[in-house]
């Protein structure tokens, strides 16, 4: 918020914004570049004087000319180092700033954003687009300046040597930027196609590797290979088409040099023979013709780099200016949780054609244990996500202690709620750090162990090489599904939050552990709270009625609506859906198969 003004400059004029932000390195870089070019352009003159000295048979002049030449070259080397260094600092600092901004933005955005933005796309923004913009503001800018400086310096010298030669040799050069631009445009579209196809080939490979068990299981190797080869072949052709254009770059400025050189030979030699121009000037001029090709092609290159940079920046800008639908603008904090109230709540996902939640009314009081059941797609998880403000409310309201949830600070929300989501997500960090995820400072191994003990995983962790310090993820240990699930529960347990939400988190947990967890949840929070009477509020989503049986109230959901609320016994009489679920889950085998009941 505080940077709002700056941010607008960044978004409208990114180049200007960064030049102003880092004026020193940019200025020093440009100055070094200017001096480098200035001195470098003079070096052929050193050669000219040397050759003229040779033709004039004057060896002192020859030595002098060479000393000047060597002196120039040394200074050129020094300043060359200078501009590389300063410009390097400039554009790499810019890239760092952009990366940090992008990441910061990503941490503000909610699930509705992530649903429509694939991870791969965001990664590409962070690396490719930032890099393309860096190339534009760094090397692109540099190339442009370089070209302008060189043009401004070489041309006067050439004209000074011979105006007549100048126009006759350079007449071919103005076509270069035009050709370069055409080539750049052609290669850009072809390269884009190549990259797209490469992405497809990669995705295909990924599928083959990830699905190798299915492929082997159904003996589909040959079919998969055929399909892969078709993609791979398309990619090959796209690569070839890039090569074809790419190979034209060198010949196209080469041809300008050739034509210029031939023209110089044709028109220049008579002048040298007549003696109006010296041989040294002739050789130096030949060198200048060669040097003029670069600035002209550089203009073409720089402008296409700038264009690409602009395209990349507009993608970056789109992200940076994305408004989060769950802005953290509240000013209220919750010290002691009293109630969670959902009132006339109706919710629809972006782009969906049906409501995910319809007219939900539910009040949960502190200390209650609430069960939620319902078939897949009933809206259970959606309800929890709206209630914890992963999504904004549009119709109806969510209130905590009577305060609208928008007005509560996010850090306060995350402080008193621990939500164990349905999808188990562990970070590639140590086991201990994963459990202590919700703390800004590591709470100590004892606290971690206490939590893991509650979910009966302490012993198993000790059996892993590295114990609590073992890394998870692909480069570390692989846990079983059940173990992962228990770790995510431990992650919630350790925080002793006043409201704990378990979204189908007990599905892969055995009966004994489930009991231990429910016992721990129901135990008093007293150990950590001044108020001895504080009881934890628990919301449990499960498909197993046995898990929910002892809840104070059970909410039966179906097709986004609350169908019934009540205790287990009440629902058995009240709700048809609940009764069906119950009878299906209670097909006790001895009774059914008879003989030995």
């Amino acid at each position, binding site marked *: 918020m505080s940077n709002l003004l700056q941010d607008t400059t960044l978004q409208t004029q990114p180049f200007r914004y960064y030049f102003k932000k880092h004026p020193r390195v940019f200025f020093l870089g440009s100055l070094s570049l200017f001096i480098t070019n200035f001195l470098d352009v003079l070096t052929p003159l050193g*050669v000219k004087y040397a050759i003229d000295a*040779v033709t004039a048979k004057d*060896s002192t002049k*020859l030595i002098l*000319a060479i000393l000047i030449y060597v002196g120039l*070259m040394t200074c050129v*080397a*020094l300043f060359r180092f200078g501009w*590389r*260094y300063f410009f*390097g*600092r400039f554009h790499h600092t810019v890239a760092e700033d952009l990366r940090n901004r992008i*990441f910061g933005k*990503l941490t503000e955005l909610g699930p509705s954003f992530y649903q429509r933005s694939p*991870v791969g796309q965001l990664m590409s923004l962070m690396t490719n687009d930032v890099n393309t913009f860096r190339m534009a503001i760094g090397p692109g800018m540099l190339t442009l300046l370089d070209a302008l400086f060189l043009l401004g310096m070489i041309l006067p010298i050439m004209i000074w040597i011979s105006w007549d030669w100048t126009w006759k040799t350079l007449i071919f050069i103005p076509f270069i930027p035009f050709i370069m631009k055409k080539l750049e445009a052609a290669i850009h579209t072809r390269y884009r196609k190549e990259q797209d196809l490469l992405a497809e080939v990669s*995705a295909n490979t*990924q599928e083959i590797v*990830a699905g190798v*068990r*299915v*492929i082997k299981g*159904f003996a589909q*190797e040959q*079919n998969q*290979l055929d*399909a892969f*080869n078709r993609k*791979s*072949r398309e990619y090959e052709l796209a690569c*070839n088409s890039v*090569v074809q254009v790419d*190979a*034209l770059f060198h010949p196209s400025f080469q041809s300008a040099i*050739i034509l210029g050189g031939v023209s110089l*030979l044709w028109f220049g030699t*008579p002048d040298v023979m007549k003696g109006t121009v010296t*041989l040294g000037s002739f*050789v130096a001029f030949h060198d200048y013709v060669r040097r003029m090709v670069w600035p002209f092609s550089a203009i073409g290159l720089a402008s296409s780099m700038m264009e690409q940079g602009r395209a990349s920046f507009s993608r970056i800008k789109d992200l940076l200016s994305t408004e989060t639908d769950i802005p953290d603008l509240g000013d209220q904090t919750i010290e002691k949780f009293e109630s969670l109230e959902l009132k006339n709540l109706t919710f629809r996902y972006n782009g969906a054609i049906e409501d995910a939640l319809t007219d939900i009314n539910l009040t949960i009081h502190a200390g209650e244990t609430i069960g939620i059941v319902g*078939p*897949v797609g009933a809206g259970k998880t959606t309800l929890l996500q709206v209630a914890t403000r*992963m999504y904004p409310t549009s119709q109806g309201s969510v209130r905590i202690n009577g305060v609208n949830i928008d007005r509560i600070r996010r850090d306060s929300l*995350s402080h008193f709620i621990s939500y164990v*989501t349905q999808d188990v997500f*562990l970070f*590639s960090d140590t086991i201990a750090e994963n459990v202590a995820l*919700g703390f*800004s400072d590591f709470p100590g191994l004892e606290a971690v162990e206490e939590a893991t003990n509650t979910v009966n995983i302490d012993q198993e962790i000790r059996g892993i090489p590295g114990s609590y310090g073992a890394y998870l993820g*692909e480069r570390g240990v*692989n846990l*079983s*599904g059940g173990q992962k699930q228990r770790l995510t529960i431990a992650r919630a347990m350790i925080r002793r939050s006043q409201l704990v939400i378990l979204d189908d988190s007990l*599905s892969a947990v055995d*009966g004994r552990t489930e009991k231990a967890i429910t016992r721990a949840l129901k135990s008093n929070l007293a150990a950590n709270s001044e108020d001895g009477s504080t009881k934890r509020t628990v919301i449990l989503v499960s*498909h197993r009625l*046995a898990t929910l049986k002892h809840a104070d109230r059970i909410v039966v959901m179906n097709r986004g609506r609350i169908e019934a609320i009540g205790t287990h016994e009440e629902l058995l009489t009240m709700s048809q859906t609940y009764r069906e*679920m119950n009878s299906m889950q*209670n097909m006790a*085998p*001895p009774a059914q198969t008879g*003989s030995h009941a």
Partner: protein
Amino acid sequence: MSAQASAQPVNEFHDTDREDKVRVGTSIREILVRLWPYFMRRKVQFGFSILAVFLGAGAARLAVVVFGLVIDRGVLKNDHGFVAMAIIGYFLLQVGGTLMDYLQMVVFGRLGNRILFDLRSELVRHVQDLPISYFDKTPSGRIVTRLTNDVVSLGEVFTQGLIMVFAALVSMAAIVTAMFAISWKLTIATLIIAPPIIYIVKRLSDRVLDALRASKGKLAAINAFVAENVGGMRILQLYGRVGRNNARFQKLSGEYRQDMMNQVMAYALLWPLVSLFNGFSVAVALYYGGRLTLDGTITTGAMVAFLLHTRAFIDPLHLILEKYQVLQNSLSGAERVFTLQDEKAESQEGLDSIDRLAGAIEFKNVSFKYRPELPFAIENINLKIEPGQSVAFVGRTGSGKSTSIALLQRLYDVTEGAITIDGKPLDQYGRKQLRARIGVVQQDTFMFRGTVSQNIGLGDPAISKERTLRAAAGARLSEFLRSHANGLEAKVEERGANLSFGERQLIAFARILAFNPDILILDEATANIDSHTEQLIQEATRKVRQGRTSLIIAHRISTIMDCDKIVVLDRGHVAEVGTHQELYNLRGIYRKLCDAQFGEGKSVDETPI
């Protein structure tokens, strides 16, 4: 086992991070030796590009010689006719040389792309033939990186590295030859500072390489961090971890900038040094060449030509240095690709085709270890299954259920004993042919990107549209598909993310019905299903079991009570075998499992076994 199988996509970038720090052992020579056969498959293209390199370098030098002659024989002798002739010659030589440059790049580039196609195709074939144990121990992300990024970086050898370096070397050799032709003394004097410069340049480019490697590693770390944080953003927000991870990212990002700056510094020293070297060479050529010209040892034109040759030295030198890095970069990629290629594939011998299996399965004293140093995963299993029977395997995690089933699919080979199908030992059937006759439904079914119907037929041309439709109807998929606008053509996202667990399960059943295997393996899903879906799945299960031998890895007693045979496994041994009734009355392990599931007031599908 299946827990490992469902590899988590958490961290696919981290391993590159680690491996990039490993020093590379492969040399460019090894790459060449290894890729030689691929070149030899396309001799004409290969030979043509080599020829073009030589012609191009020769033409460029001759053009300079002509330029010198213009001065000596034309300008200084006032011979207009010679000048005109020479200019035409100069023009033709230059045009010819440039044309050769172009052809060399195009032909060699195409050749490289073809070789990469071959390589990718061979690698994918090879990876599909690797034993499942390879996939157990290798994270999927790493294999994918081998097949994509590493092949691409190996490809840079062709597309930009090899031919250009070769061309540069040839043109440097041509330059030195041309210089020697003018004056060997002058050449030696001019190039005398080359060795120490080359030494320093080599040291500096090693620094550049180190910096490159460091920054690549850091970039991989940044990618991994972003991928993971984006994936788990919800958790980070829910648990108030955002601020801290922002700080961690900024630290990484700053370190990356520093690594990039090291690279900039190394380059900033390298390039000016190279041009300074060239400057000194030109100065020496001017001074000593000037002296020789004054002496009359060489002509003025020769001196100018010599200068032009000297100056031309810098371009190929530049290029070699630049490409040296590209090549070094490809080395690590190449090495990893080659390591993957050298991985031993499953043996493919066995019957070429199997028409139909009756489905009589027998385990005879079967024992198996995953690795020689590990204890037996299953030991001395004896079991007979009649055609068409349904057999359930129960037991705790690690009791050997999944292992026995994997052996039947020949995902692993038995250590001792034998498994027979229809009386024939398994190793007499080819692996692929055998697997084609055995259908598997996994706990969590893998879904391919594409459509529902593609996921049923798996892109097999043998599975017709009607068959897919019938299979979908048979698996009761229609009810689910009705909610998707496109029905069977509904899009399936990566790993079936847009489908519910139940939908994925039903698609897996439809797969079985479409492929109609003789033997069915069903690894029952543990949980997460609501009662209605459960009912659909039960129905589908009954349907797919009809008419084929079925082996079920069971987690809930309720689903297997009607099986012909229940096999209770305990620590790798068969503990009990019989029908539900028999085993229940036996009051052994099975009875305990039943009591654990039905007793204590818990519902049927409560406890996973």
